[in-house]
């Protein structure tokens, strides 16, 4: 059986075993399918029944004397005369004469009412006397409170009826009975306000779903994933089967992948069952009417793929994090202790972003977990853009891959596998590290995942703080992002992990042909890039922003632009991506896997959806150049040349830019043939020089 197929073997076996476990079945099937509907329906029915039972009850009202009893009777009778409005008030009242409202909650009497004539200051106006109705009730007694609400509504109806009658009495002598009634209505209700929502039924359904489905998803995916994650890692270790598994000729990566996919599957199944169960309960039981009378919730079938789409990245990320955390634990109990903070850590961002004011923009795009919850909401409301979907999916994939890398690193560790094999310190302390030629895949993915949000925040932070002063912002960006995050951090990590710096960062002199290839590619790379960009969907806002930036840059000295926007990114990005990340990702099987993955990470790091294909393509060329030449130096040259030439021509030689098809008016248009043909020839010649180079095999 081929190696990767063994992941499928592990997956099948783990799934079979986990599904045979009663605890999994309880968490996955019994709770959502049986318990939720029963609890939800039961609770709501009881609440409904209680409410309707209370409102049709006969309540006892006590008044001070027979005269007040008579007046209260009249009030109720008059209010009930307004049939339409009084129809909903179904309680009946038994009026008794007594001293006051008793204290005891279980008393027979629910209300005490005092009716007094209130004398206004100054001369009395004509008409009936003004009444003061005091309703004494017990706030903590549900019966008393319901009685108060019902009698209060009747009293209000009585007030409006009195107003109407008084008004009619005033007008009738002049205008006659019918006209008086019409006038009274006009005076009493001079303005009628109607609200009309433009939201479609589907959008209203989406809005309602978006409020609670994402958070249900987070909770349910966790509920479903936690147990299998613990069982398949720490549980396996505790039962003594891990040793058996580790002596088989299967790489730890495949073992972890198999287990991770099972955890994700169970998480997804649990979440699907939960959502289906909650949805069916709401839909079939008519609870939507109970929930929101004026906002009927419709769950359209077309929302189901959206729900599934949201669920998969959620489940994958959680499965990866949980497997990583549990891989660190030696026992089931230890794993449970580790899982709790993770759940809390995931719930906090998930809960916070459910506040309606949060939108999927800026820093929230890359906030782990939070961005998925926001994306789910935007998807339901159909307000998200492909850019948002892509960034969230890619960042989530990156985080999940990094978490899996950590899981692989921890799972195979002897200190974790065997409790008698020493302390965990061996995992983290430098003196226990063995010198290695290059980083592990885990280290490469972890560094890329950690630096990604940091770089994003550095970018957006500097834009916000120094957006007005372009030169200072670019200088700070070069120092903070390129020198700090991209050069110093990988260097520190490499030194701490005892990596061979020459091998890790490809710091050796390349053959002369590689330099020549870099020169040709650096001078012509913009041609296929511009052509590719022309095929991508154009974004007017981006083009406009680019135009403004060009104008601002044109006013700065060229040497500074080249330094800050060509040399600094070339050194920093090559050092990180084609140095640390590529050498780490090249340790596994498959010559192109590392190159493709590095190019994808490089593209995502540029935070520009429209240029994703272009940066990915340039990333491929750069990674291939490094692989063929065994050095990052030609890649630095290519990168700096590409950035510098484009920048110089566009900002400082507009006439030449127009001739080359790069001017303002031709942005995002196809290049003219007299530029395209020699450009492509130069580019292909550069590639041809690389094909001739003997690829360097990474040392094992």
């Amino acid at each position, binding site marked *: 059986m081929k190696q990767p197929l063994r992941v499928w073997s592990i997956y099948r076996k783990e799934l*079979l075993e986990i599904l045979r476990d009663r605890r999994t079945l309880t968490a996955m099937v019994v709770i959502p399918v049986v318990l939720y509907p029963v609890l939800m329906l039961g609770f709501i029915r009881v609440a409904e029944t209680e409410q309707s039972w209370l409102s049709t009850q006969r309540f006892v009202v006590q008044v001070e004397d027979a005269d007040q009893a008579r007046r209260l009777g009249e009030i109720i009778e008059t209010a009930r005369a307004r049939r339409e409005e009084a129809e909903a008030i179904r309680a009946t009242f038994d009026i008794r004469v007594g001293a006051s409202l008793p204290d005891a909650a279980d008393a027979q009497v629910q209300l005490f009412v005092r009716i007094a004539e209130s004398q206004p200051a100054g001369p009395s106006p004509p008409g009936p006397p003004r009444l003061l109705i005091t309703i004494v009730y017990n706030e903590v007694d549900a019966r008393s409170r319901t009685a108060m609400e019902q009698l209060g509504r009747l009293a209000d109806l009585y007030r409006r009826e009195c107003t109407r009658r008084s008004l009619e009495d005033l007008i009738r002598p002049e205008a006659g009975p019918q006209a008086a009634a019409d006038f009274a209505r006009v005076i009493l209700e001079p303005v009628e306000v109607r609200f009309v929502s433009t939201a479609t039924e589907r959008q209203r359904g989406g809005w309602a779903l978006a409020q609670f489905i994402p958070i249900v998803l987070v909770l349910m995916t966790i509920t479903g994933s936690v147990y299998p994650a613990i069982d398949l890692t720490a549980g396996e270790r505790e039962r003594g089967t891990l040793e*058996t598994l580790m*002596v*088989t000729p299967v790489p730890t990566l495949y073992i972890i992948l198999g287990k991770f996919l099972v955890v994700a599957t169970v998480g997804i199944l649990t979440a699907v069952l939960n959502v289906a169960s909650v949805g069916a309960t709401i839909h079939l039981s008519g609870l939507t009417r109970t929930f929101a009378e004026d906002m009927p919730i419709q769950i359209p079938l077309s929302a189901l793929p959206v729900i599934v789409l949201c669920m998969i990245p959620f489940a994958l990320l959680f499965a990866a994090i949980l497997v990583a955390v549990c891989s660190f634990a030696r026992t089931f109990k230890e794993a449970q202790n580790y899982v709790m903070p993770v759940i809390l850590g995931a719930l906090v961002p998930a809960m916070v972003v459910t506040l309606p004011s949060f939108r999927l923009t800026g820093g929230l795009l890359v906030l782990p977990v939070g961005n998925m919850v926001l994306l789910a909401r935007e998807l339901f409301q159909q307000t998200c853009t492909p850019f948002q979907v892509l960034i969230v999916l890619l960042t989530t994939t990156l985080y999940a891959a990094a978490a899996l890398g950590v899981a692989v690193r921890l799972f195979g560790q002897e*200190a974790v596998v065997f409790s008698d094999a*020493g*302390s965990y310190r061996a995992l983290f302390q430098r003196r226990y590290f063995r010198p290695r030629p290059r980083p592990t895949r885990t280290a490469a993915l972890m560094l890329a995942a950690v630096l990604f949000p940091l770089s994003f925040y550095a970018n957006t932070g500097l834009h916000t703080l120094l957006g007005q002063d372009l030169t200072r912002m670019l200088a700070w960006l070069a120092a903070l992002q390129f020198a700090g995050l991209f050069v110093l951090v990988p260097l520190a990590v490499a030194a701490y992990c005892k990596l061979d710096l020459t091998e890790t960062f490809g710091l050796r002199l390349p053959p002369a042909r590689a330099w020549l290839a870099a020169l040709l590619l650096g001078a012509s790379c913009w041609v296929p890039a511009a052509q590719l960009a022309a095929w991508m969907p154009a974004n007017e806002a981006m083009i406009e922003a680019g135009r403004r930036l060009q104008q601002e840059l044109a006013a700065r000295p060229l040497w500074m632009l080249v330094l800050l926007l060509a040399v600094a990114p070339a050194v920093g990005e090559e050092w990180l991506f084609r140095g640390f990340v590529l050498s780490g990702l090249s340790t596994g099987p498959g010559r192109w896997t590392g190159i493709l993955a590095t190019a994808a990470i490089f593209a995502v790091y540029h935070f520009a959806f429209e240029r994703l294909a272009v940066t990915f393509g340039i990333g491929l060329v750069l990674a291939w150049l490094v692989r063929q030449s065994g050095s990052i130096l030609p890649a630095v040259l290519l990168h700096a040349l590409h950035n510098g030439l484009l920048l110089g021509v566009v900002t400082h030689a507009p006439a030449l830019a127009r001739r080359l098809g790069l001017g303002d008016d031709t942005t995002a248009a196809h290049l003219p043939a007299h530029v395209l043909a020699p450009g492509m020839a130069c580019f292909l010649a550069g590639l041809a020089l690389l094909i001739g180079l003997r690829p360097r095999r990474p040392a094992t």
Partner: protein
Amino acid sequence: MIEVIDLVKTFPTTSGPEKRAVDHVSFRVGCGEIYGLLGPNGAGKTTTLRILSGLLRPTAGSARIGGLDVVEQTDRTKRLIGFLTANTGLYQRLSPRELLPYFADLHGLDRATGLRRVEELCGWLGMESFMDIRCGALSTGQRQRTNIARALIADPPVLIMDEPTLGLDVLTNRVILEFIRHQRRQGKAILLSTHYLDEAETLCDRIGLLHEGRLIAEGPVDRLREQTGCARLTDAFLRLVGPGAAPALAAGPCGPEDAGR
């Protein structure tokens, strides 16, 4: 087939100096040979076997299986090894009929070969009666037979067994010892550790005695008895590693009182 050269393994500890579990140990096991690693608890037997099976990395020295380095070519050496311990757990919710093909898959056997191998082992180890019962419900003896079948599923040329007969009844013990001898006849290199000295005496061709991580004596059982002057392996063992034992074979031969015990 198995070659251990100057092997050292130290473990970091939470406080104090590192613990040296294996201290410059060297030995070889040839094809068709049973080599017994003996020693008191904590002598380094299990650590040595785990290094050979690729579960632990040696701190220094090297170990080779079939000429391949266990650190540099772990995936390839793992294909050559059948590894079995007394503590090896089985998947409780799978039956032997489900579990054995799974391990056949993991060892890279194709479906048909895997199933044929399962049937063969099932016949040799007398497992027919419990092939469809989940491992959680099997007796200790049945579990150990399943475990041996699991270790041998890919018919590896090297067997590494850590106390394979611990806690077994006489009947199962006999079946398993006979099975190990059968494997030797087939030309396999077998390295086992055991606490049962009588068993080692009758089963092993050569014995290595580990004490505090060091190999203090090595050779065929007869030669060990000869060198220590003890009639039984147990006495020779006590003489070498018991309280007040002199280092290695510098100790004098067993006195008449020892021999008579």
